Each structure stands twice: as C-alpha cells, then as structure tokens.
C-alpha cells in the first residue's frame, strides 16, 4: 500500500505579495487517508485547488502515478483520476441523483443523452457501494449526509482513485460524520487515496493515516497520525502552545436577561428559552435546523410570534435598534454580509456602533478604534484599513470588539469562531467566558459541539426548529448531544448509511478500524442490512 498516486513537488503559488503555498510537497498514496490541516490562510485551499487544477502553481511539479502532468483545468485533473468534494456541495438541487452524478460526463448514443444507460450505470454504482440512495430521488429532498454521498459518487463515476474532501463534516450530524468516516476508511481500504482537508484535530486523529500540517503556506510537519497528538498538531499549526479555554467553575447567576416564550418563526417552535446573567446558554444542532431563524427572531431581524424580553423589557415588537437599546449585543454568523461593512475602514466599523450621535471628530474615531484594536489584539492593519483587508480571525475580532464594548446584559453569539484560526478561537472563547464572568448573559449558538462543551452552562439541542433536549453542564458530552440529535431524527437518520464497497461489506463494527463507538445506530450502516429494521 505504498504506491504513490499523486505527488505534488515544490509547489509555490503567490497571490500578489501573499505566498499562499511555499515549496510544498505532498504525497497521496493508494489506501491512505491523508489529512491536510492548517489555520485559515495557511494555504490548504490553494494547495487543493492546485491539485484539482483550478489554480495553476507558479512553480513546482505534479506527478500522477510517477509521470509529470500539468492540470490546466479541473477537467484535466478529473481525467487523471482526481475527484473533489467541495465544502459547499455543487449539486443541482432540483435534479435527480442520476442527473447529478452523470452531469458533464453523460453517456450518449448517436450524440443524444442515453437515459437508460445513465440510469443503469448510476444504479450499478449505487449498488456497488451499498449506498441507500435512490437514483431517482431529487437531491433537494435528501439530508446533507446523502447529498455528500451523491458528491462522492459523482467523483467515483468519473473513475476517481484520488478523492479530495474539503471540510466534509461541516454540515453533518455526529452520526452522519461517523458514517462518512466509515465510508472514507472503506474507500481507502479499496485502494483509493483520500485527502481530507479539515481544521478539526479530533477528526484527523480519528480517520487519517498521515497528516500534513501547513503554516503560512509551508509544510511544517508531516507525521504519521499514530505518532502524533492533537496538542502537537495544534502547536505545529500555530507555532505556539494553545491552552484551551474552558468553563471551569459556575459563577453566580443573576436575573434573566433573555426570556423567550412561545416563539414561532418557521421552522422555529421554541416554547421557552431563558438566559440569566452570569451564564452561557448554548444552542447545539446541525446547521440548518432553525438556529439562524431563532437568532434572527431573538435579535429582531425577523418577524415572529411569541414574546421576547431582553433585560426585563418586552421588546417583542421592537426592531434591532430597540432591542439593542434594551440591552442586546449580537455577533452574527456572517461577519462579512451582516457583521461588518467590508469596504469601510476598521475605525468606521467600530465607530458606527458607538459614536453615531452628533459630531464626529476623526481623531477621536481613530483613537477609539486604536484603543479597541489594542485591547482585542486586532493585528495586520491600522484603523484606517478596510475590514476587507483583514484575515477572518482579525475581522471577527473587530466585530467582537464592537459588540463586547456595548457591555450589554445579553450577548447573542452565533458561530463566533466559524472560519477563524485556532489562536483566534482560543481568544474568542476566553472573551466569552470573561464576558460571562463580568455578570452578563450569553446565548451561544454553535455548530461545533466541542465549543459548547467547553463553554456552556446549559445546552439546548435544536432539531427541526425545536428543542429536543436540554443538557446541563455536568452532563455535557459529545456523545450525549450527538444522541439527542440522532434520536430526534431517528426515522430519517436511519436511511443514511455509509458508502460501503461490496467486497468489504460484511461488518463495520467487527473490523474496528472505523469509528463506530458512538452510537449503536451507526452500525446499521451495512449494505445488506435493512436500515429500518
């Protein structure tokens, strides 16, 4: 199992003054799952784009099965057996599984699309891999885990024996993630070379054989997974020791700063939600289960029925402005589209939250910004630079700085660490804990279970717009939250099973290489087993 499918040698790519990849070597071997990790901007995406032919390197060589190739487009990469599953699925939602799989490589007869052969080939592929997919199912009716299978089948249909997965677990439930990992292991055992781009170190430890760590465009380590630890990887990624912030002791709890009753805002059906001063209340759930609608209804960006009280004031009919006046601060999920004006300067972005009345003294605006930037360690530019020129982590610090500075009784934070690097994550976690310790209440909505487990005093699990479970800090664990999500969707979740090649299909659990320890439901992932049984 050491034959090298693809080798990237000395890849260098510059975007203007930024060196995205600096003399990077990467070997993808048949049968090996190779994790590629690094902070945002470390060059993971660029490297994968080079491998997939959508970005041309300035220098360096690509060797496929030992012969040098030049990928001038994804088409060339696909022809060389490379398949890629993007983070955001590239599927036609209104079309069937079959149409999506064959798109761009349709079987034809006399120049016309041969529908029958297309159906047969996709059905054969689905059967070969033991996928529960129905070839005629319309993609928009499928859960995320199955849509991802469609993406993987797309690559396999094109004969991929090198599979790139870009942040594949971002949209999956823990159970779906476990199934995906089982599929990945199976594909690897069958000889596929898998490149897994991720920023979650626990996933690296779970599923990969080798891991390449990128920092500032260069490879800083490439150990076998078995011989490394998450802490060592984090150190390699950031160049320093990261000490995770956790919520160690419960603080004194004060009066309620947020009281929500009977909230209805399709699909949200929340009968009761309370956040008190001095606590962090978490909302867990897979993206798209109504969390963002809940947040928008709470902060006043979306109409809803029911009542919302912030710091004792009934703001049910108030817009964002009224709710902010009552005592709301809000870090939105989309810092580019909602949380900042990217084309304006950092100083303006900060001032618009605090210095909007009357005359503006430019010197004062600058000083205010410089002060906040110092306090929150915003690096990379001065107050006059645009927010667009900042990295994700620093842009998020600008948003956080502005909102924390309100010292509002209630802070709503929506995926506050999404897309920011490890150093910034640690920083943001500390800030949230400090905000709580200062006697404020925090409503923390997050897709990252580890974040909620580290910070929250109480977590509500949200599925399909409802709270299906509420877990206190003492009982918080990934398993407990994962179970709550899975059980709530039981009838649907059971349909999702792993992709399993036929020759290996006997049993996943017996094999032990896949992570199947979390939930008994996961071991249903068998081609021969009727999932509903």
């Amino acid at each position: 199992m050491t034959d090298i499918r693809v080798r990237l040698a000395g890849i260098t790519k510059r975007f203007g003054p930024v060196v995205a990849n600096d003399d990077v070597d990467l070997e993808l071997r048949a049968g090996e799952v190779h994790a590629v990790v690094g902070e945002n901007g470390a060059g993971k995406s660029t490297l994968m784009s080079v491998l997939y032919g959508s970005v041309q390197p300035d220098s360096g060589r690509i060797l496929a099965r030992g012969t040098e190739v030049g990928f001038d487009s994804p088409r060339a990469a696909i022809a060389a057996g490379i398949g890629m599953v993007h983070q955001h699925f590239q599927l036609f939602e209104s079309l069937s599984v079959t149409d999506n799989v064959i798109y761009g490589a349709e079987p034809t007869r006399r120049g016309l699309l041969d529908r029958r052969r297309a159906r047969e080939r996709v059905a054969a592929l689905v059967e070969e891999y033991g996928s529960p997919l129905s070839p005629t199912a319309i993609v928009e009716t499928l859960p995320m885990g199955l849509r991802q299978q469609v993406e993987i089948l797309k690559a396999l249909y094109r004969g991929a024996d090198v599979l790139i997965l870009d942040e594949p677990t971002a949209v999956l439930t823990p159970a779906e993630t476990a199934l995906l990992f089982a599929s990945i292991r199976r594909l690897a055992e069958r000889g596929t070379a898998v490149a897994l781009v991720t920023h979650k170190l626990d996933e690296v430890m779970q599923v990969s054989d080798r891991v390449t760590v990128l920092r500032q465009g260069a490879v800083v380590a490439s150990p076998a997974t078995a011989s490394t630890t998450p802490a060592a990887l984090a150190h390699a990624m950031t160049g320093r020791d990261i000490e995770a912030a956790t919520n160690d002791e419960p603080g004194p709890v004060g009066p309620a700063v947020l009281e929500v009753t009977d909230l209805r805002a399709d699909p949200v059906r929340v009968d009761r939600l309370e956040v008190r001063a001095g606590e962090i209340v978490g909302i867990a759930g897979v993206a798209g289960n109504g969390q963002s609608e809940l947040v928008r209804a709470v902060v006043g960006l979306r109409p809803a029925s029911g009542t919302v009280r912030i710091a004792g004031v009934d703001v049910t009919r108030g817009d964002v402005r009224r709710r902010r006046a009552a005592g709301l601060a809000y870090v939105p999920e989309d810092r580019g589209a909602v949380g900042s004006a990217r084309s304006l300067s950092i100083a303006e972005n900060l001032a618009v939250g605090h210095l909007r009345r009357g005359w503006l003294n430019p010197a004062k605006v600058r000083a205010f910004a410089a002060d906040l930037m110092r306090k929150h360690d915003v690096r990379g530019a001065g107050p006059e630079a645009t927010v667009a020129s900042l990295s994700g982590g620093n842009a998020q610090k600008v948003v956080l700085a502005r909102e924390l500075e309100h010292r509002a009784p209630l802070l709503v934070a929506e995926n506050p660490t999404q897309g920011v690097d490890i150093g910034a994550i640690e920083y943001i976690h500390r800030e949230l804990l400090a905000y709580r310790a200062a006697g404020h209440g925090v409503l923390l909505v997050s897709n990252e279970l580890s974040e909620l487990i580290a910070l929250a005093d109480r977590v509500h699990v949200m599925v399909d717009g409802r709270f299906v479970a509420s877990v206190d800090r003492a009982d918080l664990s990934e398993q407990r939250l994962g179970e709550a999500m899975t059980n709530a969707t039981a009838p649907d979740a059971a349909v999702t099973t792993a992709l399993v090649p036929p020759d290996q299909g006997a049993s996943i659990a017996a094999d032990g290489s896949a992570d199947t320890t979390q939930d008994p439901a996961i071991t249903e992932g068998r081609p021969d087993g009727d999932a509903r049984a």
Partner: protein
Amino acid sequence: MATLAPDRGTGAAEKPLHRVARRAVTGAALPALLASFLVGALVLLSAGTNPLTGYQALFRGVLLDTNLPYLAAAFAPILGMAVSFAIPLRMGEFNLGGDGQLVLGGITAAAVAMAIPAWGLAGFALAAVAGAAAAGAWAALSVPLARFGRVPIIISTLLLGFPAVSFASYLARYPLTDKGTGIPQTPRLPDAMHLPALPASAYVNVGLLVAVLLFAAYWVVDARTGTGLELRTLGANLRFGEYVGIDVSRRTTGALAASGAIAGLTGALIVAGPPYRFIDGALVAPGYTFTGVTVALIASGRPAGLLAGALLFTALQVGGTGMERDVGIPRQLTAIIQASVVITFVLIVAVQAYRARTKAGAR
C-alpha cells in the same frame, strides 16, 4: 449600478493625501476621462476636423473671458443637482426625480413670491424655503411608496418627476401665467426679489454662493457627523446598517427629503436669476439634473470628486457653446464626450469588480 455607490477604498493605512492621489490614478474616473477625449477625437477625425483644432476651440471656449460668467452661472445648478443626487447615493439609493423636484421648487418659489410681492429679498428667501420644502416632501413621498407599496425608490422618484413637471407646466400656463405674453411663464419677479449679483458679472449672483455653501454643508455632514457615517454605512452594507441599529427608514426619509429640498432650492435660485421668472421647460432643458447625476455617480458621492466633476462638466457644456461659435463644431461633441465618460467609467468599474471577484475566488 449599486456597485458604484460604495466607497471603494482599499488597502493598508496611508496618508489621506496619498490615498486621494492613488485613487485618482488607479480609480476609474481619470482613465475614463482620457478615454472619452480619445473617443471625441475619433469623432472629430471622422467628421473631417483636426481634433487639435476642435479641442483648442473647446478649451478657448471655456477660458474665454466673456464665457467665464456663463461658466460660473451654469456651475451653481450643476453643483446643486450633483449634491442633490449624491445624498441618497451615499446610502445606496437613487433619486432620479431631480427634474420634477427642480421644477416644483421653482414654481412653488414663483407662486409664493407672487403672493408676497412687497416683501423683497426676505420674501424671496421665504419663497425659496417653500420651494425646497415642496420638493423635499415630493421626493420623500418615495419612502412610503417603497415601504408600503414595494415600489423601488429609483422607480418612484423617476415616475413622480413627470406629474411634477406637468403640474408646474399647467400652473405656468393657466393660474400663474403672465397674462398677455402668450408664453407659458410666470410674471417677472419684482426687482427687490432678484438675487443680488456678485461683483464679477450680472450673471453671477448669490445663487453661486448658496450652491457652494450647500456643497460645503454636504461635505461636513458626510465627513464629520454621525449622520454621514450612518449614510455611508448603509451604502456600504444595508444589512450591516440595520443590524448595527441604524434607523433605516428614518435615514432614507431624511436623505430623500434633503435631496429633494436641495433640488427644489436650486430651482428656486434659478427662478430668481435672469430672466427672473419661471418659464415652462427652462429649468429642465439645460439638463442640469442628469449632468448632476453623472457627476455624482462618477464621484461615488465623494465630496472632493463632486466638486471636480461639477467643474469639469460645466466647463464641457460652456466650452461646447464656444467651440460651436468659433470653429463650427456642433456642441453635441461635448455630449458625446460626456456620454463616453459615463460609459467607460462604468466599464472600468465593472471590470475592476470582476477582477476583484475572480481574485477572491482563487484564494
């Protein structure tokens, strides 16, 4: 068009002066200007005229002593209309009803002045304020239409312009007409209401001062007040503005009312200059409104660009008249140059935006 509105600042900290200089060179305005003069040269060549002769005449037309007063006189309404369009543009809204507001301001001022003929200059000041108020209210009408009727402001302002122009035309023909002249115009204002001329020339009156003051006020509000910051924020990202707690409908109403009021005031000031009356069509025909729109668009509503653009476009219009007189080149050439400026400017902005997108996509 919305891509024109946001401030296109980039990059790291620099001295403000450097930034202005860099924007002028790397921005779209200057290249667009050069390109449009090239287009003009091609047109001249194809018409069998030496472009050098033509442009010489154009510049002579601008700088000729006898033309300077016209330049100054045309500058005031163009600057006024540019400021009028720039205010809502700053927050990403388009007021295309400038003509209607200009005319409404003019006819209202004429009507009020006729009612209080003995009040002199103070009376006309009152009349001008009434004109501004009428035009401001008319422009602000677009906000409830957008909010409750879901008519985009760019559409409603444009459409509201037509009844305003027609209504003013009706007033100038019937109830307020100067009987006996047979021309659709209001009676000449009493002498005491004529705007005092500045020392330079009879054509250059206090209206120029008022326009410059309005422009200065716009600059100060834009750069030095919370209101200006709010407007720019809304223009850069409406959702962000809403999220951060800006009262969007109040700011929109205010911006449109101010925009309309400045257009109305501009109309009133024209009426109080020679020939000291409201003549049907006289306010619309010179195309002040859309020259102002063009200037404000190219400047993205930025104050410094507004001033430079208003000067340039006024010069082109006045110079065109001189060129026609001196060497017989039709002044439509300057219209061609103006149109080319707009087209190339929009092209350059579109290409830059496309490049920025593809560059961002590669990361």
